[in-house]
């Protein structure tokens, strides 16, 4: 084929030479190429379910320095995202149908390279994964990074456990429970929030044959003050947030879960304020600062309302440190590389926004934005 092509090429050139004058020499022709994401670039990932075309969700890859768009990943139908910066991979759990929107359902974890943004592996999973909005806690991995945890819902809930190397799988029933919180130091252990206010903790056998479940005491009130399923890692545990503005520190490393501390972020003079959104807060494990999306109005049904302010709450000092104006955010994340940087999703103005945190006052200021996305709900800045 190449030989044939070259023969015709020579022929074409002969024709060209007849009409090519000397002036053409000054022109240097270009060629089309393909860019890649620099290894060292600090990344912001935004998962947009693109509801109006929900089969075609996507993950935008932004430069954390200026929010410029550097590329995108396919997220399929109600896809979930999990960045594995140590492995330079992005995992996407999603669903395909044989005929776009109908026919046989196929669920897989797609493994993307985080520089070429190409799919380099695919792991088939049961067609029971929760086709849900992209909450972080619905797709997680073990503390050693070897095992993926995927939330299922049929609507009976269970959790799929997938070894990325061997692709061995285990499905643990977790009826009435939702959200996955891997144990901070035990790779074979994870916890889940349950509808009766307990936390279930599962410990798997190392051969993936079985898992044992331990149920905590009743730790929260799913009726009066439910917990958001978004949780943040603290130095030695997890931080949960309740609809009414309580921060719960949880220890999830043991065989069963405990709440070690409950902090109320709402001061008396702001009694009608409440947290809200899909990813309503971020915690800096080093400094112990929590940044929380807050809005006035704490009626039932307001728990996904966009922000009016971001509050900075000191988990160690147990006090509200600063309140900063920040309108219309429903998701917030802290940079894993620079704890003075926050990134948020503003679904009202359809922007992704970048914020800087003042080191002494903890006042937060907007420092950049890009108009992007349709119904984005998850933002991560993992490397």
């Amino acid at each position, binding site marked *: 084929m190449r030989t044939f092509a070259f023969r015709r090429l020579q022929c074409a050139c002969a024709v060209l030479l007849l009409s090519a004058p000397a002036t053409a020499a000054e022109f240097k022709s270009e060629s089309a190429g393909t860019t890649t994401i620099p290894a060292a670039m600090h990344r912001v990932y935004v998962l947009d379910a693109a*509801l109006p075309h929900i*089969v075609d969700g996507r993950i935008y890859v932004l430069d954390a320095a200026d929010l410029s768009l550097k590329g995108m990943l396919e997220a399929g139908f109600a896809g979930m995202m999990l960045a594995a910066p140590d492995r330079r991979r992005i995992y996407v759990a999603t669903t395909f149908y044989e005929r776009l929107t109908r026919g046989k359902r196929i669920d897989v974890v797609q493994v993307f390279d985080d520089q070429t943004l190409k799919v380099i592996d695919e792991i088939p999973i049961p067609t029971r994964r*929760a086709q849900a909005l992209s909450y972080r806690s619905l797709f997680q991995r073990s503390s050693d990074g070897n095992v993926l945890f995927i939330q299922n819902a049929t609507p009976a809930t269970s959790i799929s456990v997938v070894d990325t190397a061997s692709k061995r799988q285990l499905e643990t029933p977790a*009826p009435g429970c939702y*959200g996955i919180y891997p144990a901070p130091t035990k790779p074979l252990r994870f916890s889940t929030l349950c509808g009766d206010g307990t936390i279930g903790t599962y410990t798997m056998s190392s051969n993936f044959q079985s898992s044992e479940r331990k149920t905590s005491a009743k730790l929260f009130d799913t009726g009066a003050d439910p917990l958001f399923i978004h949780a943040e890692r603290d130095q030695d545990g997890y931080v949960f947030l309740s609809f009414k503005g309580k921060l719960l520190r949880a220890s999830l490393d043991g065989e069963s879960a405990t709440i070690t501390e409950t902090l109320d972020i709402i001061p008396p003079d702001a009694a009608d304020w409440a947290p809200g959104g899909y990813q309503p807060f971020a915690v800096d494990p080093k400094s112990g600062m929590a940044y929380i999306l807050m809005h006035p109005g704490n009626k039932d049904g307001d728990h996904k309302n966009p922000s009016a302010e971001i509050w900075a709450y000191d988990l160690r000092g147990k006090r509200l440190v600063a309140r900063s104006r920040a309108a219309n955010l429903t998701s917030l994340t802290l940079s894993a590389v620079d704890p003075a940087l926050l990134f948020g999703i503003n679904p009202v103005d359809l922007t992704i926004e970048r914020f800087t945190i003042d080191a002494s006052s903890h006042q937060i200021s907007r420092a950049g934005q890009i108009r992007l996305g349709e119904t984005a709900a998850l933002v991560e800045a993992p490397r």
Partner: protein
Amino acid sequence: MSDIIINRLMAAFDRAAEQAFRRSAQAIGRRSALSTIGKLLVGGAMLPVLPFDRSSGVHAADAPKADAADGSCDYWRYCALDGFLCSCCGGSVSACPPGAEPSKVTWIGTCHNPDEGKDYLVSYNDCCGKTSCGRCLCNGNVGERPGYRMGLHNDINWCMANTQSMYHCTVSVLVGMAESK
């Protein structure tokens, strides 16, 4: 409402969940559902709204006449609807557009009808098997709870138990009355 949810969940279990999970799921699901918010009064015409009966009545042409304001997210029935209004997509307040099937399982909201001063139980059936409609996206969350209270959760595709599980739009079906709070 507890029982509606139990029945809905159970119907889904019958069809979609694994045999192995069934016993524990029933036990825990029931316990969970029995602690549901609100006290409920359920009408006598209860039977047709249960999912396993409804699936046979899918082609019913007697869909209720849409209210005047049904294209607006502010319409009272939509107090906890998260998705595209089927009334903007070729369907009506309670009927799926052509080619789409009502979901076999749903979540239940409680909405206040300001004209009557009464509260109603609303089944938010997703309509399934067609590409997402894309019109009139609403996001009401009264009484909504995270997925550990699955029967009160709306950030998930309720077409999940249908054979064709693509999400198209959402209807609001009155399935009972609730005691006003």
